[in-house]
Structure formats: C-alpha cells, structure tokens
C-alpha cells in the first residue's frame, strides 16, 4: 500500500487540468514506475496525486497534418518499440526505450513520465534531444509547444507550468527526413539498469553518401540534464566521411560534456566511454544510412 494522501482520477485531459487547478499541491501520476517507487522510498510520501493513467486519448503514435510524428505522452515504451511509424522513421527511439528496465517496466512506463521526471539518465531523453523533439504541453491557457532542449531546465526540473500536463512529443519531418540513428546505453548490467552514460547519434548523408549533410549527437548522464554536443556536430557537418573526421568528431564531444565524478562512475571513465560511444554510434548510423567509411 502507498502513502498517498489523496488520488484524483482524471477522465480527460481537461478533467486532469481542472483537478490540477483544484489541487495545486497534487503531482501528476502517469505510469508510476518512478513516482510510486519514490513514494515508497519516502521522498514523495503523503502526496496528493492526479492520475492520468486512464487517458487513452494520450496514447498512440501517428503522423499529424504537418507530417510531425506525434507520440502520445502516455504511450508505453513497449508500444513505442512495436509501433510501425516509429520503426519506419525513427527506429532508434524504439530501440532506446527498449533498453529501459525490463519488459514489465516497459509495459507500464510512459515516454511522458520518462521525460517529465527530468532525470538525465532517461533512455528516451538523449535520443529525443538528438532528434530535436518538440514537447507539447496542455494547460489552463491551452496548448504550448517547447523544444526539448528548452524543456529541460536543470536536474529534475522541467518546464511544466502549474496545472499543465505533457500531452505529446513531436518529431518534425525536417528532423526525421532521410535521417538514420543509433543509441548506445552504457550500463553495468544488460537489463534492469540505469544508464551510466547514454549516447544517441543520427546522420543525414549527402545523396552520394560521401559527406555528412547533418550530424546530431545527444547524451544522457554526461551533464545534469540530457544534452547535445553542438561543437562536435558543427565540426562534422559538411565533412567527408572518413576515419580521421570520425575520430576527431568523437574527441570533440569532450568540449560539450562535463560528466561528474561519483561513486556510480568516475569522471575519467565517463569521458573515455563517451568518446568511444560517439565513434561507434556514428559508424553504425553511417552504416544504417547506407554510407561507407573509406579508410
């Protein structure tokens, strides 16, 4: 049994917003795989909760009229991984969320919850950062859209206003068109684990597949919030696909990330791993995009 002061079950998005206004102290409960665990640990004991778990309207993946890929915030990880649209246009996201915890956690955990708890190790976040996702929030003043890089403010803090809930995550066409990516989750065991460092790279190659038209690389746990290595991206954009450039790109990420020293992993290890992962994820992205690395 959980130490919950009160539970309000929303029937619709508007109902949820109303409940949040009526109970300004209440916190949002989606899949609960983070919130319920923190309640049991005592960090959130005695909270009021507005449960939005029953809002089927926030589930599912579709392509909207602006050809954005629209992922309902309550879509579970397992459903994202199996979704044909995701598999077709942004399969790396499906792969990334398929590394969260275990199958049961992926059945309950939602991509909205994963992004809203503002934790840098969230497996979906580094990929969403690397694909310039847009976070859609609905509140008393209506719908608001925020680029994910602005959505994350600082560790565990995201740009959600009072009585707002995250309703969708959008990937613009310009972001996913002709784009291929790969995610590596570095953790101490191969399941039921939190990323020590997560690295998501994607590339759009020139038509002749010889040069990088656009490269993006996002990291989890390389900074207090999920981040991008812009300097490294700037260096590689437009460059020819060859070993030298790939290696230089991988080393340049160090200028954008500042992993910390902790008992979970030392700074030196995190730096080293971040460079190795950048290279490997980039090479795999090139392969997926049909490019060949000439020595």
């Amino acid at each position, binding site marked *: *049994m*959980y*130490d919950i002061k009160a539970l309000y079950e929303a029937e619709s998005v508007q109902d949820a917003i109303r409940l949040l206004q009526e109970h300004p102290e209440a916190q949002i409960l989606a899949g609960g795989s983070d919130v319920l665990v923190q309640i*049991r640990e*005592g960090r959130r*004991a*005695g909270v009021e909760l507005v449960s939005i778990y029953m809002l089927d309207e926030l589930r599912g993946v579709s392509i909207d009229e602006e050809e954005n890929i629209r992922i309902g915030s309550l879509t579970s990880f397992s459903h994202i991984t199996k979704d044909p649209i995701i598999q077709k246009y942004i399969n790396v996201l499906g792969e990334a969320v398929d590394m969260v915890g*275990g199958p049961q956690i992926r059945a309950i955990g939602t991509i909205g919850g994963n992004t809203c708890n503002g934790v840098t190790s969230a497996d979906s976040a580094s990929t969403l950062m690397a694909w310039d996702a847009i976070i859609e929030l609905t509140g008393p003043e209506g719908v608001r859209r925020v680029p994910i890089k602005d959505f994350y403010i600082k560790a565990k803090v995201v740009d959600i206003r009072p009585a707002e809930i995250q309703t969708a995550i959008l990937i613009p066409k310009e972001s996913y068109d002709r784009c291929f990516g790969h995610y590596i989750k*570095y953790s*101490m*065991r*191969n*399941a*039921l*684990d*939190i990323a*020590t460092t997560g690295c998501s790279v994607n590339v759009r190659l020139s038509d002749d597949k010889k040069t990088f038209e656009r490269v993006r690389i996002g990291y989890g746990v390389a900074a207090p919030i999920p981040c991008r290595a812009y300097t490294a991206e700037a260096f590689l954009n437009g460059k020819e696909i060859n070993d030298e450039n790939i290696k230089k790109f991988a*080393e340049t990420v*160090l200028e954008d990330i500042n992993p910390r020293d902790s*008992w*979970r*992993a*030392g700074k*030196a*290890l995190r*730096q*080293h*791993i971040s*460079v*190795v*992962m950048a290279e490997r994820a980039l090479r795999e992205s090139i392969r997926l995009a049909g490019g060949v690395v000439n020595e």
Partner: protein
Amino acid sequence: MSNKYIGKAVTRHDAHDKAMGRIKYTDDMCDKGALVIRVLHSTVANGIVKSIDTSEAEKVPGVVRIFTCFDIKEKHYYPTAGHPWSTDPSHQDIADRLIMTDRPLFYGDDIGAVVAEDEVAASQALRILEKSVEYEELPFVLDAQEAMKEGAPQLHEKYPNNVLAHTEIHMGSVEEAIKEPGLTKVEGWYETQPVQHCHIENFICYAYGEGGRTVVVTSTQIPHIVRRVIGQALGMDWGKFRVIKPYVGGGFGNKQDVLYEPLCAWISIQLGGRLVKLDVPREETFISNRIRHAIRYHITSWMRPDGSFAARTIKAWCNNGAYSSHGHAIAAKGLNAFPQLYPCDNIDGETWTVYTNRSVAGAMRGYGMPQASYAFECHAEDCARAMKMDPLEFRRKNLMPVGYYHAFSKNELYSDTFNQCFDKGAEIIGYYDKVEKYKNQTGDIRRGIAVSTFWYNTAVYPIALETSSCRIVMNQDGSVQFQLGETEIGQGADTAAAQMIAEELSIPVDMVHPVSCQDTDITPFGTGVYASRGTYTLGFSVRQTALLLKEKVLEAAHQFTRMPVYNLDLVDGKIVRTTDGRELMTIGELALSKLYTTDGSQHLTAESTYQIKSNAYSFGCCFAEVEVDIPMCRVRLLNIVNVHDCGQVINPILASGQVHGGMSMGIGYALSEKLMWDEKTGRPLNNNLLDYKLSSFMDHPRLNAAFVENYEPTSAYGTKGLGEPPACPVAPAIRNAIGAATGVYINELPLSPHTLFREFTDAGLINDPWRNEQGKESK
C-alpha cells in the same frame, strides 16, 4: 545392482505445487490482521543513542506501539550464528548482539521498532522517528587493516584492536627453504568485495502467543537453532518457543543466522501475544541482515625451476563488520584450505577476523572459500606465468595428489579428482584448441580462456557437532512420511531424501512423502542446512532409520508369513521370500495387518540420530571463455563449464541446478556485484536491487554443469557436498580468462568496467590521445 531411484532424475516432490503457485511461504500463511513491525535503524556508523523522542511518531493514526532500545530492561546478549550449540564454553559463539541496542555499531543497526496496523502507518511513523533520535556520534572505521591500527575506534572492549580472532599455521621452515638457490619469488595482494545473498524472498517472520508459549513462523534454514537463540535473547526457557519453517524463498546462508525472530517474538510478548509480522524490505535486507566477508590476501610463493613450490606464505584480513555472527570460522576455513590445495613443506600463514563499523558479515554460499579460491587461483595463475608454464599443467603438477590425508579432519583424497575434472571440462569447452587460437591477439576485441579450481569439504566435522535425525512413519497402505532436521530451502534436500528412502525400503518413490514444513514441536532435532552438508549428513540418518524400519517390517512379515526374517526381503513394495523369490504379500497388506491385527498390533515407525564423524573433499573446476571489448571495458562471458566431483549424484537435475546456481552467484561475484559505503558518513550507497548489480537473464550465457562421480567411501550413499563448491572457482576462472585475452591480470573484484578501465589504462591498453593533450589526469 543398479539403483531404482538413487541417481535418477526424479521430479522434485514440491515442483507441481510450486508450478501451480499454491505453495505457501511465510507471508502467504500470515493472517491479514497481523500488526506490522518496522525496525528503526541507526543512521550513524558508530555512536551512542542519547534519546529517542517517540511522542510525535505515536500520534500517527494506526500506530499501536513504539519500542526503543531503552525498553530493554535486562540486556541479554546472544549469539546469532547458525552453529550447533556447544556445551564447551570455549567453543560457543560470541554472544554480542541485542534485539535493540543503544550502542549502534554500524549504519543500519537496530535501535527501535514501530508496531502499526498497516505498512503505511508504520513507514510514516518510522520517518518521523528517524528524525527524533539524538546520537552522540563517534568516529568509525570501515576497513579491516585500518581497524587494527592503534587509535582506531574500538567496537568491543573484550577485543583490543578490533581483532575478533587471530590464528596461524606453520609447517617446516620458510626461512630456511627460501635460501635454496634458483628460486623465483611471486607475490601478490588480492582484494575481494562484500556482496549480499539477494534471495528473492526477503527475510520475514511473524509471532503470536498460544498455549502459554510464543509461536514464531519464520523463513529460516535453522529452525531448531532459532528456537534456542530466541530463548537466549529473551532470557527465557527455550521450550517457551515453537519455531515453524514453511517453504523458504532461498537462503544461501543469510537465513543461517538468527535475524529478527528474537525481536519479533519479544514484541509479540510485550503486546500480550498479539499476532505481529516483521517483513524486512529489500533495502534493509542488504544492510541489516548478513553479507559476505570481504577478505584481503597477501600471498607469496617461492618457485623452483621445475615449477614446484619451495615455500609459501599467506596473510588474510577478514572484514567481519560490527558483530561476531559466525566469528572466526570463515577466516579459519580459508587458512585451513591453503596448505591442502597446493601442498608445500614450508608454509607460514596467519589470518585475522576484524570488527569494523559495517554491516555484519555472516555465512554466504562458500563460507570464505569463494574469497580464498579467488586469491589462491589468481596466485596460482601468476606463478604459472612467472614460470612460463601452461596454467593447467602447472596446476596438475602442484595440486593435492591422490591419497593425500589430512590428519586433523581425517579427510582423504581417494580419487584423481582434479585431473578427471580438468580433462572432462577441457573436452567439453574445447580448451586446448581455444588456447592455441587465442594466443597473442591484438585489436580492440580479444578472447581468452582459462581454468580454475578450488578446495572444499562437506559439513563441519571436526570443527563442530555434525548430527542428523530422521523419523519415518508407515501408513496403513505401506506409504511413508518422513521428517528430517535438514531443511528444504530450494536445494531439493527433501526430494533427495525421498529417493534414498524409496531405494532403501524398495517402495515406489511416490509413496514416500516428505513433511517439508518443519516445526520444532514435531520435527526431530536437527541443525538445519549449511556448509553443503544437506544430502551428505541426512544420508546417514535416513539410511539408518530406513534400515530400522525395514527390520520392523520384516519382523512383522515373519508374524504373518511364518517365514524366518533372514529368508525375507522387501522388494518393489512386496514382501519376498528370498529362497525362491516368491512374493508373499504387498507392503500395504503387511502394514494394514500389523496395524489392525488383534494379536500384537503395532504402529510401524522408526526414528534415530546419527552423529557424523567424517568429512569429505568435494572438488571440481571451472572453465571460462570470455570476449573482452577493451575500449568499452566490457566483458562478455561466451561459455562457462563447471565440473564437480560430488560423489554419487542422487538426482542429476537437482544437482545440475545447484551447480547452475553456484555458477550464477560466481558470475555476479566476478563481474558486477559489490556493496558500497560512503567513506565520509558510513552510509550504504547501493542497498537496493537497482544499484546493486545482481546478474540478470541477459548477463548469463548458457551454463554447463558436468559431473565426475567418484563414489565417496565415507558417505551413506556415496555423496559429497555440492551446494557451495560451484560458487568458488568461477570468479578466478573469469579473471584468468580476461588475463589470457588482454595480458592484464587483475587482483581485485568485481571485474567491473570501473576496474577494467583503471587496469587497462595503467597497462597502456587504453591511452586516449586527447587525454594526454588536454592534460586531464585520469584517475
């Protein structure tokens, strides 16, 4: 004659109920109305509890009572180790524990308890209570060697320099032996880490008053010992308690200690015998139950040119945590094994068991031997490399020879076990081809294969009492129930015993019913299961008792068949006249007649105790093949094979299950498991199943268990210990395989990415060009 049941893959007698989900563990039997106990733990690593203000916490609705260490009027210090009691005081375990103490010695020590109507009220009150404790904090020490230094904080007055015990062994003269010319000296420090049992069923017990006594239902390996210790802890007659052990969800040694049964019984008594349940949450299981001893070794060997040992020394520092629990037994076992595994004429060895302000270390599968095997086998590999010998050949040359006899324990190596196991394992995994294939590799991804062995014995004779009692009762249809002192905790002891009885009485095994749930009021006395003693020790009393019962059966058969007993036998459930093989009556008819005859009706039962005065070596080895991704500091275990000589295998499926479980524990011990503390505050850092890296399904390759069955002459059914041996050789085998692949031989566990990164960097396998340019120091 070939056995009908011994050695056969008889299905576990409780498998059906477990597959249906109707098996009852402790929590499943406890009434929903039980009050919930949550223990208040110390949040300082060393200190004195000045006061606990319970007023605020008592206001929480649903709280029934709050107890604190100040409610303990008479302090009854008690031992917690699951050792058989000794009537000789010098052999008794150290009694240094209290159910609640005002003198916490580690972060997580027990200083109070909340009793509430439900778990929410209990945890609410607990959180308030945690903030209303006034401590006088004292300096603390976490490392064993640091704790021995002058000026280190003293945990127990009677043990200066925190040394619980210090023992030595000396053979020949090392001083003289090392003067021999042409010797090569090999030296090494080896560090093993604290790990936890992580049985999936947390410790749980509940207690209630009945018939002027207190009944304690608990998930334990040692019900009779629990009853004794509750009596000692509460200063009451032992008979005032009845301990019941239902099915257990894994123990691995943690439940071979008395954990919270005394506190739970005491609270029930304070509340007039009300039903109270103490269910330990996973986070507290990690730090407030028992863990494995972290042991640091320093081993030196002087090798002759032919690769034999001239002299050897060993020092071992064993971190025991805040209380004695099993005391010096773990360290002593390791030291005792050192001169036996690689015999040498000149040996100096000493070992210390040291108190530190850390969670209490107790028994865990292997009881000191996984730690010792890691040090011994890493060192053996280092010696082989120093002498440029093939590691396997080096071992074959130096290991305990056939016929070796150990005077103290009277153990004898009757068969060429080591070579047989090496040959079998090498053949299964294809060792020799792969050694060739993986010679001097380069590149980021490299493979390696290696082998390691270990020393292990069975049960605890002569160090402590070894006794086993059994009772068999025959029903009117000739079927039997039997009860044992050895407890079923998942290893299959019940099924093995059933096979033995079916074999001895020659009746179908499905007519042999174990009474698995043990109850100290009913079950014959027994000290439970530990030290891989299960099948070996119960074999003695089971066979003896079965023979006694058979005698009574044949005596009865004489009455009804008029044939002399020496011409009668019990075969396949029938009374048979041996002279012509004629079947005279079925066992069912016999049992029915004997029970209901109006001329000498008798209930057919037998009960006996057997005191075991022998031990048995149980050796084997592990072959590990790994692939190391050097840049990513990751190890992938490609293949692993354990070969064990546990004498005659009673049940191949159960036996291989034990080997798989031991290998799994060994893999985690080698690659990922480690309990960590914050050096500054003494607070545990990763006491939960997310941050403590227990191996998942995806961290294991296929596990291969193989057996070499040398019938053990001293054993009732030729069996030897098998519960713990499989956990011993895996970690060193993986370490040596990583060494073979990368040339980097690491003397520390676990071989996690952190360790590999540091060692590969030091060895130059990892040298990031950017790190030198940007001058970032790498540590």
